[in-house]
C-alpha cells in the first residue's frame, strides 16, 4: 500500500515568527497521504495554510515539526533543487530574460541533460501545451493564458514525481479558466504525474479532483472524494464551505445501530440514518443541501413548515427562501423543467419535504 503513496505529511506543523510576539501557526499537526497519480486538491479559505503546505513539500520552507515524505523517504532536509518536485507558481514566475523554449528547457538544462535531449523534451512539451509556434517569443510577448501554459510545460518538462500548483488559474478570466481546468485534467492524465492543486474555489476543487482536502486554520478537516466531501461533510465548517447548506439544530431522542430519531425545533420528530455514537439527549446540527429539499403546497404531513419570502430565478434553477422561524431562512433549490417553473405566491404557507437519507448529522 505504501508503494502507492507519492507524498506524505506526518504531523507537520509550521510556525512563522516563532519566539516573537507575532507567532503564526500556519500549519497545525497536518497529516495526509497523497497517492501516486492522484489529482489531489487542497481547498480552504484564505490564510488557512494551503500555500504553506505546498512550500513545505517543494522545500522552500522547512517544517517546525513533523516530516515530509516522498515515496516513503524523508525529504524534509533536502533543498528544493534536490527534490523531484516542481511548482507552478500563482503568478507563473517565468524568466523574463528567456524565450518560451528557454524557459521550458531551464530545468532540464540544470539537471545536466545534453543539448539534444533538452531540445527534444522541449519540443515534446511545446506540443503538449500547444505552444509550438510561439517557442521563440519573449515572455512579455505572450498572453496570460499562454504564460500559464509555459509555466505548466516548464514544471512538467523535468518529469517531476509530483507537480505542485498554487492557485494556477486564479489570474485567468472565467472562460479561459474553464478551458484550463479541462487542459489540466488532460495534462495530468497524459503525463501520469501526481498533481497537488491549491484553490479556494470549491467548484473548481469538486470538478477537477480525485480527492479533496478541506483545510481551515492550519488543519485538515476532511479528506475525501468530491462526492463524499459534498454529501457527507464531517463538520459544520466543511458543510458550510462546500456549496450552500441549511443548518438546523436538533435533539437526539433515541438511537439504534444505524438510525437515529431526532426532534426538530418545531417539535416534529423524524428518523434519519446516522453513524453510531450519538448519545440520547445530545444536541446535534442537521445539514440539508438546498437541492435535496422540495417545496410542497398540498400536504400538511410535512416535517418543516414556513412562509415563502423570496423566489429567485437563477437560470437553470429557481431558489426559494422560506422563513421557518429561525435566524436565517431555509433555502430550497429546484431545477426549472423546460424553463417553466411553478409560481407560488409570496407569503403563502409552504411545506419543505426532505428525504431523510440526504440529511447529514453534524456533532459539534
Amino acid at each position, binding site marked *: 500500500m505504501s508503494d502507492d503513496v507519492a507524498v506524505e505529511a506526518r504531523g507537520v506543523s509550521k510556525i512563522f515568527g516563532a519566539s516573537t510576539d507575532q507567532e503564526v501557526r500556519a500549519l497545525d499537526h497536518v497529516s495526509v497521504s497523497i497517492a501516486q497519480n492522484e489529482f489531489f486538491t487542497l481547498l480552504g479559505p484564505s490564510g488557512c495554510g494551503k500555500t504553506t503546505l505546498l512550500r513545505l513539500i517543494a522545500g522552500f520552507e522547512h517544517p517546525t515539526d513533523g516530516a515530509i515524505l516522498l515515496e516513503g523517504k524523508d525529504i524534509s532536509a533536502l533543498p528544493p533543487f534536490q527534490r523531484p518536485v*516542481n511548482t507552478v507558481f500563482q503568478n507563473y514566475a517565468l524568466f523574463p*530574460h528567456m524565450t518560451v523554449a528557454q524557459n521550458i528547457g531551464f530545468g532540464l538544462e540544470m539537471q545536466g541533460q545534453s543539448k539534444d535531449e533538452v531540445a527534444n523534451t522541449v519540443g515534446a512539451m511545446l506540443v503538449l501545451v500547444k505552444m509550438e509556434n510561439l517557442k521563440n517569443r519573449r515572455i512579455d*510577448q505572450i498572453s496570460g493564458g499562454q504564460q500559464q501554459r509555459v509555466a505548466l510545460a516548464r514544471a512538467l518538462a523535468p518529469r517531476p514525481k509530483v507537480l505542485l500548483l498554487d492557485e494556477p488559474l486564479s489570474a485567468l478570466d472565467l472562460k479561459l479558466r474553464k478551458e484550463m481546468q479541462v487542459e489540466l485534467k488532460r495534462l495530468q492524465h497524459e503525463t501520469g504525474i501526481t498533481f497537488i492543486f491549491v484553490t479556494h474555489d470549491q467548484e473548481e476543487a469538486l470538478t477537477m479532483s480525485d480527492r479533496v482536502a478541506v483545510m481551515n486554520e492550519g488543519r485538515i478537516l476532511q479528506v475525501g472524494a468530491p462526492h463524499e466531501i459534498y454529501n457527507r461533510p464531517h463538520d459544520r465548517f466543511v458543510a458550510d464551505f462546500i456549496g450552500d447548506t441549511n443548518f438546523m439544530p436538533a435533539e437526539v431522542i433515541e438511537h439504534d445501530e444505524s438510525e437515529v430519531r431526532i426532534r426538530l425545533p418545531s417539535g416534529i420528530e423524524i428518523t434519519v440514518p446516522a453513524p453510531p455514537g450519538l448519545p440520547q439527549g445530545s444536541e446535534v446540527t442537521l445539514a440539508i443541501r438546498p437541492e435535496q429539499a422540495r417545496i410542497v403546497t398540498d400536504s400538511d404531513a410535512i416535517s418543516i413548515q414556513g412562509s415563502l419570502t423570496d423566489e429567485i430565478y437563477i437560470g437553470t434553477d429557481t431558489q426559494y427562501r422560506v422563513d421557518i422561524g429561525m435566524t436565517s431562512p431555509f433555502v430550497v433549490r429546484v431545477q426549472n423543467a423546460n424553463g417553466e417553473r411553478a409560481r407560488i405566491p409570496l407569503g403563502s404557507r409552504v411545506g419543505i419535504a426532505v428525504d431523510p437519507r440526504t440529511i447529514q448529522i453534524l456533532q459539534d
Partner: protein
Amino acid sequence: MSAEQDSSTESFESLEAHAYQLEVRQNLLLSTPALIVLFCAASGTLLIMLVFSFLTPGDYGGIKWQFSTEAWFQVAFYRDIFDETVSIADAHLSIFWRSVKLSFLTTLVAFVLGFPTAYFIATRSPETRNLWLFLVTIPFWTNLLIRTFAILEIIRNQGLVNTVLIALGVIDQPLDMLYTDIAILLGMTYVYIPLMILPIYASMERFDFQLVEAAYDLYATRWRVLVRVILPLVKPGVIAGSILVFVPSLGAYVTPRVLGGGKHLMIGNLIELQFGQGRNWPLGAALSLTLLVIVMVALIFYVRSAQKEGGAHGH
C-alpha cells in the same frame, strides 16, 4: 508557421517606435535650455582643451599662441633635452597603465563587495531597507579629502590597523600599507563603492525574488541561480554601477595623491602636475584628452560585450 505572427509583432513594434520617437522629439524641445548649458559647459571646455593641446607652453605656465604638435608627441615619447634623442615616455605609459589597472581593480572590488551588499539590502523588509540605504550614503556627508585622511590614519605605520595587530601579537613590525597601490585601491574602493551599490540595489528592488525560488525549484544550485537568473536581470544596474565607479576612478586625483604619496601617481595627478609645477599646459590638455579617449573606448567595449552576453534574449 510563425512568420505571420512575427511580422505582425514587428509592425507593432515599429509603430511603438514611432510613438516613442515622437515623444522623444517633444521632450527634446523642452530640454533645449538644459542642452545649451550642457553644450557650452561640456563641449566648450573640451574645445578649449583641444585648442590648447596644439599650442606651445608659455614660460611661466599658460600658453603661447603658436601651433605645435609637440604636446601630443610628448604624451607617448620623451625627447632628451641635450642630444634630442627620442625614447618612449615610460613614465607616462606606466602611469596610464597603473591608472587603468587600479581603476579596473577598484571597479572589480567594488562589485565583489557591493553586489552582496545590494542583495542584502534588497532582501530586507521595506522598513529596514531605507535605514541600510541611509547608512550606505553616510560617507557622502563628509568631504572627500577628510575621508581620505581618515583612511590614511587607519593604515599608516602607527595607525589603527598596525597598532591593533601589534598589540594582538599578530605581527611585530608594522605592515607597510601606506603609499602603495593597495592603499590607493583601498581608498578608491571605499570612496566609490556607494556608486556601485546604489544602481545595483535599484535594479534589485524591481527584481522579482520569486524567480529565485522558481529557478531553485528547477534544480538550479544557489550559484547557478545567481549566474543564470539574478545577474542577467540586474545587469543594467551592474553596468551603470561599473561605469559610475570606473570613470571617476580613472580620473581620481585626491585619493592617489594622499594615499599613494608622491610615488604612485595616477593620470589625474600627472595632468595636475602639467598645469602646476610642470608649466606645460598643452601637455596637460593632451593628456586629459587621451584620458577621455581611453574612457570612451573602455566604455564602448564594456557596454558592447555586456550587451552581447545576454543580448540574444535580453531586454
